[in-house]
């Protein structure tokens, strides 16, 4: 690359976007430190951290997020792969299915699911049951992320090349396609985490105490603690995602067929 990349416009642009994103968080932060009248301090945070319910609900949500990612990817990756490789004519169907979760009200989805599927007891009574609708709720985002990623690959060439070298389907998917999808997979995973951590209606109606339910509860009962919790949850989710990103990046091999990175 011989061209000097002008740094001014991108830097300025990113700076403005950065200010837009940070300011509301700052405003929330200022309020979270307020203790009445003119006093400021960390009492809201201290009160929060000492509540066991905070960590319990957080742990539950993180666990559900990981399970949702796994189930979601297992179900979606083969389907999106085959869609892009062979059956592009099914794309309108996939597009439609992927936006359906946007337009069906969550409470209607709960009602439908719980009417249709009432067992087995050992599953439906546990919080893991939430993974089933969560995969659906994350579907629009995970599908798009994977689809955009797979479209960016030349799947046909990749497939023909590997199969002419004697690779079977298993090798093809796990050792050729997936390593090239790292960015898309991570994106899908991150979006799923965000959705699961923020999902409220299902957990509320099915009486599970997830992080979002806890945040809402605090928001109803205490003013400054709600703001403190908002920032805390922002921070915790952010750190969780950095964790995902770092493990995702470090584990990948350097298979670079056709993609510039």
């Amino acid at each position, binding site marked *: 690359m011989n061209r000097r990349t002008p740094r001014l416009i991108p830097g300025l642009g*990113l700076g403005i976007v950065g200010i837009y994103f940070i300011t509301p968080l700052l405003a929330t932060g200022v309020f979270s430190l307020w203790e009445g009248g003119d006093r400021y301090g960390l009492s809201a945070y201290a009160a929060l951290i000492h509540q066991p319910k905070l960590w319990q609900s957080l742990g539950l949500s993180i666990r559900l997020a990981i399970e949702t990612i796994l189930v979601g990817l297992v179900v979606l990756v083969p389907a999106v792969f085959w869609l892009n490789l062979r059956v592009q004519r099914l794309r309108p169907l996939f597009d439609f299915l992927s936006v359906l979760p946007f337009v069906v*009200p969550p409470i209607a989805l709960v009602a439908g699911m719980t009417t249709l599927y009432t067992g087995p007891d050992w599953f439906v009574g546990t919080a893991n049951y939430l993974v089933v609708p969560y995969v659906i709720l994350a579907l629009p985002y995970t599908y798009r992320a994977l689809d955009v990623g797979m479209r960016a690959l030349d799947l046909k060439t990749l497939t023909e090349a590997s199969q002419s070298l004697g690779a079977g389907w298993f090798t093809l998917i796990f050792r050729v396609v997936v390593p090239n999808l790292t960015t898309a997979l991570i994106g899908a995973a991150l979006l799923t985490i965000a959705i699961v951590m923020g999902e409220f209606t299902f957990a509320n109606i099915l009486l599970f105490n997830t992080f979002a339910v806890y945040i809402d509860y605090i928001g109803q009962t205490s003013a400054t603690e709600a703001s403190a919790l908002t920032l805390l949850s922002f921070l915790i989710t952010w750190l969780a995602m950095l964790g995902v*990103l770092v493990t995702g990046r470090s584990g990948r091999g350097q298979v670079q067929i056709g993609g*510039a990175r």
Partner: protein
Amino acid sequence: MSPEAIPPAGRIARSGGWFTIAFMAPFLLYVTAFLILPTLMLLATAFLGKHGLTLHYVRSLGEGQTVVAFRNSIELSAMAAFVGIVVGGLTAYFVLLPGMPRGLRSLVTTFGAVAANFAGVPLAFAFIATLGSLGIITVWLKLIGINLYGSGFTLYSLPGLVLVYAYFQIPLMVIVITPALEALRREWREAAENLGASAWDYWRHVGLPILLPSLLSAYILLFGNAFSAYATPYALTSGIVALVPVAISNVLSGNVMVSQQTGAALALGMIGVMVVVMGIYALIARRVGRWVKR
């Protein structure tokens, strides 16, 4: 001919029916069981009156404030998606530029993922604390002589909502479009420049056309995301800006009255809108796909 002698290419050529089932079945079964069936159950109630089937509720979609709600929702989603595409696309592009500091990308990606779902009451509270009538920025602007609310701006309006929606639209775009941007090979840019193209020429003839399918795909996602949001506008404007998801939530999961049929009819309307939007998208995609070999 023994199976071992069949060339590998033959294996691909003969894959078809069974393979399709194997790859697609888990997904299709899952979606049918847990999405399509519950949706059908919901839509059925849209046609159930007190004495059997009726079109009453569906017809009421064309009345008064319901029409306003649909118009507002479509406008809001279209604008919020557009802002997300443009600002998010540029942000993703800037972050991926070769000269940028190393950690920036991870920072932006992860922050973006959190911000993409930072919606509802906390987001509304944060924005009211910033730009509400007693917000930090509003007060600060008043100190230096600018009366924000006096000059007609208000956070509690469609433009205000677009401003707030951008907070989760932009990061969503960044995350979704990054893989597509990464696939734009440097060699193509260099080749174009060697042939004498300016930056504008490159984008117009090479970059954007290649990106277009992914841009359209992202637009659908952003539109749907904005279209379905109800916690944020409810917390911010609590119903003075008529919006469809807020109306549905009022009537299906509220505290005043409950009406399954009205909610179902409204959801049916939302599905109709999304089908139309996707139809437009399919038309554009087909015209674009014609000359990009894929």
